[in-house]
């Protein structure tokens, strides 16, 4: 469905292009980490969801978070997307905190908006806008956030639709598409803003197995053809093994183990990792 | 003209008479509305085409014609037909009849949400139609309808002020009489407004308690 040849026609997702587009401060080019969580703790009320979490991801690295449900994986992605605020700790994107300015004061809305533009996110439930057509879904952010002209945004949108193999659905509404198609649109909608970091939260969990494949194919393409940094939460272990540079295992709000896919899947150190992998693989 | 405390205190007893009548009218017409609404709902669900048409007409009347017009109509037209009824029963009756129509919708809505399996179970147990309704469906229907009904009773209470138009001494009427007598409107209307607001509180308390219990 999505050959490498097709990909070469479409826009490259190289960070340089994205950096140019958003006029990022030069210092961040030399940042060591694309995203960095430092001693993050997160409470929901009295319920502690993340415990002094440390996680660093290099630019271009593909990191997959696995672990039992409720262990805090989604929360990590939502924190990176500024959909939640941590209770303690700091998060930096290309060296810039998404919480505080250099004087240690909380960021203003506009400062935060500038930094969070470097992240994109795809959700488990797609979250396409049901009242807009596929094309309108894709051009909404470019026209309102990047202030592109409608024509320019639509041309770009068509390219991305071609990339996910759905150029025939331009004027369809989300409700007219299968779940797999909707999720591919959601991926295109995130990619069109050229994020340097892409957060994927269980993007195939709401799909029937036969539809999951087409979505994973798109992600494989993105992972192999571009330098975008990927932070993935998934229960598809084969896929995780294939695309990840590194796997981090979550349990009860902590990372209990991390390492290369080979290490984690073949020689897990923790008992809990072993137990978790067994339960997933036997499933 | 500034606020005159001595005058304000002077009219309080009169306003209290209004409060008393407001409570009386609210209670009496709520009773009509709640019971009448239930009967209308049962009539519509269980009866023939004729019964349904009758209920539909009643509902349209309540929805499309202002209470004020209905009040005037009964108040001025009935005497022409030789029937003289004092204003208070007329007020209670009209409010009750109009809100009965609204309430019947609520009952009907809550009946629709009762799962059909439950009716099947009643049939399976060989319960008679009468027992099914009396012991199973109606109690369930009422229980589900409580918050919406409470809202309508609150709405009915607020509309009792309208009855001053035909001379019922509700709080609004007493305030107006007091104002007209002394040509001072600030104190009576302000006090009436505050008292009306305060009288909302029990309703709001009940509604919030119900929400807490069932949230």
């Amino acid at each position, binding site marked *: *469905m999505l050959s490498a040849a097709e990909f070469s026609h479409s826009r490259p997702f190289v960070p340089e292009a994205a950096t140019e587009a958003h006029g990022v401060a030069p210092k961040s080019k030399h940042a060591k980490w694309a995203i960095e969580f430092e001693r993050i703790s997160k409470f929901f009320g009295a319920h502690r969801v993340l415990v002094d979490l440390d996680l660093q991801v290099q630019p271009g690295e593909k990191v997959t978070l696995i672990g039992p449900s409720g262990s805090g994986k989604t929360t990590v992605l939502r924190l990176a997307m500024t*959909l939640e605020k941590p209770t303690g700790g700091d998060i930096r994107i290309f060296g810039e905190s998404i919480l505080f300015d250099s004087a240690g004061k909380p960021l203003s809305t506009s400062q935060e908006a500038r930094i*969070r533009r470097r*992240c994109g*996110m795809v*959700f488990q*439930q797609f*979250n396409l*806008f*049901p*009242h*807009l057509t596929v094309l309108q879904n894709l051009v*909404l*952010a470019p026209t*309102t*956030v990047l202030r592109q002209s409608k024509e320019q945004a639509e041309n770009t949108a068509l390219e991305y639709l*071609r990339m996910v*193999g*759905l*150029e*025939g*659905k331009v*004027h*369809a*509404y*989300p*409700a007219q598409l299968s779940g797999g198609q909707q999720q591919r649109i959601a991926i295109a*909608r*995130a990619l069109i*803003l050229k994020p340097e970091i892409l957060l994927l939260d269980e993007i195939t969990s709401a799909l029937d197995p036969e539809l999951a494949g087409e979505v994973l194919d798109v992600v494989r393409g993105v992972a192999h053809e571009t330098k975008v940094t990927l932070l993935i939460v998934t229960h598809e272990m084969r896929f995780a093994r294939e695309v990840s540079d590194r796997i981090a295992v979550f349990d009860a709000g902590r990372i209990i183990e991390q390492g290369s896919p080979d290490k984690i899947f073949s020689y897990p150190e923790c008992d809990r990792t072993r137990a978790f992998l067994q339960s997933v693989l036997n499933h | *003209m500034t606020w005159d405390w001595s005058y304000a205190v002077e009219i309080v007893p009169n306003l209290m008479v209004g409060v008393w009548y407001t409570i009386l009218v609210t209670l009496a017409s709520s009773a009509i509305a709640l019971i009448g609404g239930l009967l209308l709902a049962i009539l519509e669900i269980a009866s023939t085409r004729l019964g349904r048409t009758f209920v539909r007409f009643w509902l*349209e*009347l309540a*929805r*499309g*014609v*202002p*209470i*004020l*017009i209905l009040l*005037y*109509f009964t108040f*001025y*037209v009935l005497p*022409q037909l030789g029937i003289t009824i004092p204003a208070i029963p007329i007020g209670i009756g009209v409010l009750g009849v109009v809100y009965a129509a609204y309430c019947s919708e609520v009952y009907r809505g809550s009946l629709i949400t009762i799962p059909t399996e439950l009716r099947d179970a009643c049939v399976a147990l060989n319960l008679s139609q009468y027992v099914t309704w009396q012991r199973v469906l109606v109690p369930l229907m009422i229980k589900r309808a409580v918050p919406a009904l409470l809202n309508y009773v609150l709405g009915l209470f*607020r509309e009792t*002020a*309208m009855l001053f*138009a035909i001379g019922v001494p509700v709080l*609004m009427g007493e*305030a*107006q009489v007091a104002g007209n007598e002394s040509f001072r*409107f*600030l104190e009576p*209307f*302000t006090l*009436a*407004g505050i008292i009306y*607001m305060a009288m*909302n509180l029990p309703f709001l308390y009940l509604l919030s308690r119900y929400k807490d219990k069932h949230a």
Partner: protein
Amino acid sequence: MEAVLEYWPVLIQGLWVTVWVSSCIILGAALGAIMLGVLRVSRTGVIRVLSMVFIECIRGPSALVLLFWVFYALPLLPGMPQLSPLAAAILVLALDGAVYGAEIVRAGIEAVNRGQADACHALGLSRFQSFTKVVLPQALSQIVPAFGSLARGMIKWTSIVSFIGVQDILYVANNVRAQTFETTIVFCLLAVLYWILTVLCGLVFRELEQVLPLNRALRAARAPSAYAPAGAAQ
């Protein structure tokens, strides 16, 4: 009957006033309801509580009491204006409609899936853009039908404006009744006129529902395969 109909020019004029007042208060209420509804779901607790108190204070005393207070009592307070009957009527009824409508708007906003706002945030939209372009258009599908029945009710509310001297249909009809003594006919005519107005209002809102973006999308999805995958590369 003829005796009453002879007064048709004034009756039409009264009807016109009723229609005009109704339109004004429904429009005003719609705008006010959206603003108050937004405050009602504000992220700031104080704003939420204040807007709730305001709402209860407006609807606590009924529109009638509020109308009399604004028209007769308010001007007696130092520095307060004496509003014309028409202005007072429109102000009070629109305000009352706005506070009832605010609860409708709040419920509509809360019914929109949280994920929609999350997606907007992830795409970099501001909270205002997210509200106007994504949340509100979807919420309207729930708001408009409920607001439609509120609007029907608001037409009936206008009958109280004659108390402070606005010459609406009820005011005019009462004069006609005093001159012709045709009580039954006059009130039947009034009932029918109000009923027609409310039915028309219901129709307008039914039409409005048809053009809402989410309803259009869902209709398109229900229609059998308007989008056969003609050029879709699958």
